């Protein structure tokens, strides 16, 4: 579990996060949602220690991420996996070498053991047999999967995904969501996903944190989204007239059943 306590972050005169206190649970996908500029990416970068908060604390189980020394911070980071928005795959390495890199750096496994683990990870994301291709030789959706495979290679306790389905077609986006959800449940890891994709919210949102202008304005799960009267949430999720009509119809049907 990851817990934040009254986190604030200021850049110059700009207060980006204003007192965020929340929890992200193990074994379920935790979504950070909000419109552009709400502070999602800053919160995610704070959670993984790339930014330091102006005030407040981030706990990984009972470890305060920002009070430990650099070596201990690296120890925590070795339990993290991260899928970046742009994948951050190393262009000069093949897919197999990309996935193998964390093992090369941190384990004493033999080449055979590492190759076997690479194959397992590629199989996990349904991408068998592309070890020798370079990232530029595979599609955007495949790159996302390779990014997930690399994030999972050291069996992390925490997985972070920054807009995992941005730039993907809706069908591939849903496949990526399902894959992340499946890996989270199967490995009982704490997954935090930064997204503004409505399909993700309604499909895998087991714990949703909504940010607006640096404030946490709503937290709940996908089943509560439809009924919630929180205006910011409704404006964000059901942004178009078409989606608002859909919501009204769904609510009518639900009330009729009740």
């Amino acid at each position, binding site marked *: 579990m990851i817990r934040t306590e009254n986190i604030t972050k200021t850049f110059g005169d700009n207060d980006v996060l204003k007192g965020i206190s929340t929890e992200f649970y193990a074994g379920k996908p935790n979504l950070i949602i909000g419109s552009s500029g709400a502070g999602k990416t800053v919160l995610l970068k704070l959670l993984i220690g790339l930014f330091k908060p102006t005030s407040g604390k981030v706990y990984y189980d009972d470890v305060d991420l920002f009070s430990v020394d650099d070596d201990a911070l690296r120890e925590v980071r070795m339990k993290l996996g*991260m899928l970046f928005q742009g994948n*951050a795959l190393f262009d000069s390495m093949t897919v197999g070498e990309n996935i193998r*890199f964390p093992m090369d750096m941190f384990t004493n496994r033999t080449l055979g053991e590492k190759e076997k683990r690479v194959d397992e990870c590629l199989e996990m994301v349904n991408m068998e047999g592309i070890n020798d291709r370079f990232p530029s030789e595979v599609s955007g959706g495949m790159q996302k999967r390779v990014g997930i495979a690399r994030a999972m290679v050291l069996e992390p306790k925490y997985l*972070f995904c920054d807009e995992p389905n941005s730039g993907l077609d809706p069908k591939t986006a849903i496949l990526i969501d399902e894959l992340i959800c499946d890996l989270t449940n199967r490995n009982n890891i704490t997954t935090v996903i930064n997204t503004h994709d409505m399909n993700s919210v309604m499909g895998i949102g087991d714990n949703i944190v909504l940010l607006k202008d640096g404030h946490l304005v709503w937290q709940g799960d996908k089943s509560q989204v439809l009924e919630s009267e929180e205006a910011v949430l409704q404006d964000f999720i059901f942004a178009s007239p078409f989606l608002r009509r859909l919501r009204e119809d769904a609510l009518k049907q639900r009330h009729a059943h009740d």
Partner: protein
Amino acid sequence: MVVDKMLYNLGRYVNLLRDAIARPEKFSMYYKETMRQMDAIGVGSVFIVLLISVFIGMVTAVQFVDQLGDSFVPSYYIGYIVRDITIIEMAPTITCLVLAGKVGSNLAAEIGGMRQKEHIDAMEIMGVNTAAYLIMPKIIAAVVVIPMLVAIAAFVSIVGGYVSTVLPGSLSHTEYVLGLRSFFVPRYVFMMFVKAAVFAYLITSVSCYMGYYAKGGSIELGEASTNAVVVSSVLILVFDFLIALLLT
């Protein structure tokens, strides 16, 4: 304002290099990266170094033949002058100024590109000490191979001087070789290697610093690359003077 900015950059540069001096997570990975950099910096720069140094040697010799031709200075002095100018100044300084352009811009662009594509963030998340992994192998590789390149440059430059004077008949083979053998001061060779090692360190550390903190897009990456070349070239000239003061 300018002084503030310089002090800020100096402090950040020192901090980055302090972070870079750390125990490697995995020695074999650092070794592999150092070898890769030696190949890129050393082997990758041999041709340009050969080309430039042969011409510098030829021009130096031809100029001195022209200037000393009608004087009372013995003609074998041409070989002596070419040798000392090459060893003391031309080989280390000109070669490293050229390498600041070639290697420095390349390193700044490589690391800056990694910053912009979030590769550095990805490594940090994995637990890699990026300052150490991305910078230290490059510095070690450069400090090892650039003095070798400078030694090659010195040799080729002297050969260039021979070709441009002896082959056209301006000097005899005996005169040129006698000049090369006269008044030899071994300390100058030591000075050449000191300069080469110091300049190699400056080129790589400054260029890596510029790339590591590159922000924004392609324009900023270009600026980082240009700054790497400009700053390291200026520092080479400043340290050239300081080393000359200290070692002569």
